């Protein structure tokens, strides 16, 4: 029986790039304007549907987290449930984690001069609430999953444009977008 590993299932086919998830996270934790624990990116890999697919990524709570490996003060630890948390007190603001993470999960706050990242809303999970981003998504495109038991036939480990999963083995699964047909005026 594999260990519990909490993570995200991102259904890109449902994502409309509305950024409610990005803002809901900032709202939950009163983050500084420059600090985005979750970020919505335009996803340009599908020429059939250019510009209108999106990718929402926060922290992937990797199996082999780079942030934990490089941090000189040991601020990051991986919990039993797979969540990689940060002891924010310890941070000395060297920013190595913000560089080492292949996904840009760790973010530096110029105001507080420390790095921080998504902690999978561990407080909310303790209250049996979904993470703020999952709760905010109007399309249900983000779900909290336990990779130990997650099983979806359409979900994949990575999509084009997403950094190599073999580096850290991120705890994220995607359902890739399927393009509709288009009648365009520039064909």
């Amino acid at each position, binding site marked *: 029986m594999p260990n519990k590993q909490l993570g995200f299932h991102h259904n890109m086919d449902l994502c409309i790039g509305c950024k409610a998830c990005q803002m809901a996270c900032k709202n939950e934790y009163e983050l500084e304007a420059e600090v985005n624990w979750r*970020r919505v*990116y*335009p*996803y*340009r890999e599908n020429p059939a549907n250019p510009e209108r697919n999106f*990718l929402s*990524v926060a922290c992937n709570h990797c199996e082999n987290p*780079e942030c*934990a*490996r*490089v*941090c*000189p*003060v*040991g601020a990051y630890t991986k919990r039993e449930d797979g969540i990689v948390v940060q002891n924010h007190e*310890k*941070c*000395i*603001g*060297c*920013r*190595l984690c913000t*560089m*080492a*993470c*292949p*996904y*840009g999960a760790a973010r*530096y706050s110029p105001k*507080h*001069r*420390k*790095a921080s990242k998504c902690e999978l809303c561990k407080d909310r999970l303790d209250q049996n609430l979904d993470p703020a981003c999952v709760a905010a998504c109007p399309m249900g495109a983000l779900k909290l999953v336990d990779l130990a038991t997650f099983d979806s036939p359409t979900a994949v480990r990575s999509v084009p*444009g*997403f*950094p*190599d999963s073999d*580096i*850290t083995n991120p705890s994220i699964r995607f359902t890739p977008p399927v393009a509709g047909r288009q009648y365009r005026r520039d064909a």
Partner: protein
Amino acid sequence: MEWLSLTLFTVLSEAAIGLVLVWWLLGFSGAAVTKVTAYTRLGRTILLSSGLLTGLSMLISLEHLGWPFSSPRVLMGLGHSWLSWEVVLTGIFAVGALALWWLGRSGNISRMISGLLVLVGLGAAFTSGMVWSMPSVPANAGGFPVLLFLATTLAVGAVLLLALFAFTADGKALAPEMAGALSLLALGATLLAGALALGFAGAAAHGSPEARHQATAMTSSGLHMARLLAGLLLPAALLGYLARQPKRSALSALPAVLLVAGEIAGRFLFFSTMTFTAVGG
């Protein structure tokens, strides 16, 4: 991110480590025995200045931290973090150099202990390179950061010693026997540093999109060209000349000036062009 403080920290500390390293290597030559007093006194000068320079570079490095006064916390990361080791080893080197300077006031410096100090210093440069060998920077794969940093250490150390041969009494005393060989060593190290710089950019140019972007950013920079020419090629030529015609004049110091400036420029480019993997490409 502002890279100046890390640039100065790494280059200056490598310069200091290199100086001690090359002095220690020269300890195996005949002249070090026949002119042991001059060699030892020069060694003390070097240990003091290297210790202070390393200390200074560490102070400069604090500037890049969000909370510099909390930096002693890096001791907590020794279990897994190259950065922790870099800081600790650099610190031990600085303290060790000063300690060895103090202990050497009797007129005797143990080769073994100074050899250990050299090892610590090389360890510092090695771990420093390992910090930047992150999978998120594809261009930095293949061990290049370590090789580049070690090459800098050797080359800058050698040219600095050559400069000391021209400007200190003890150095001048040792120069007739050592300057020629030292110039050759410096030349070799400089050429090595140049080859590695080109190899680094060349390898990156054939890698992933991020690596290619980093290579382009480096090679299209005017600073890169200036550094290759004035910071490596020119000093190499000078060193070649000095190897055959050793001089005790200011000319012996010129390679040091050019190389230090060049390495600072090159290191700044190394940091500022780093291209990270990111979502969305």
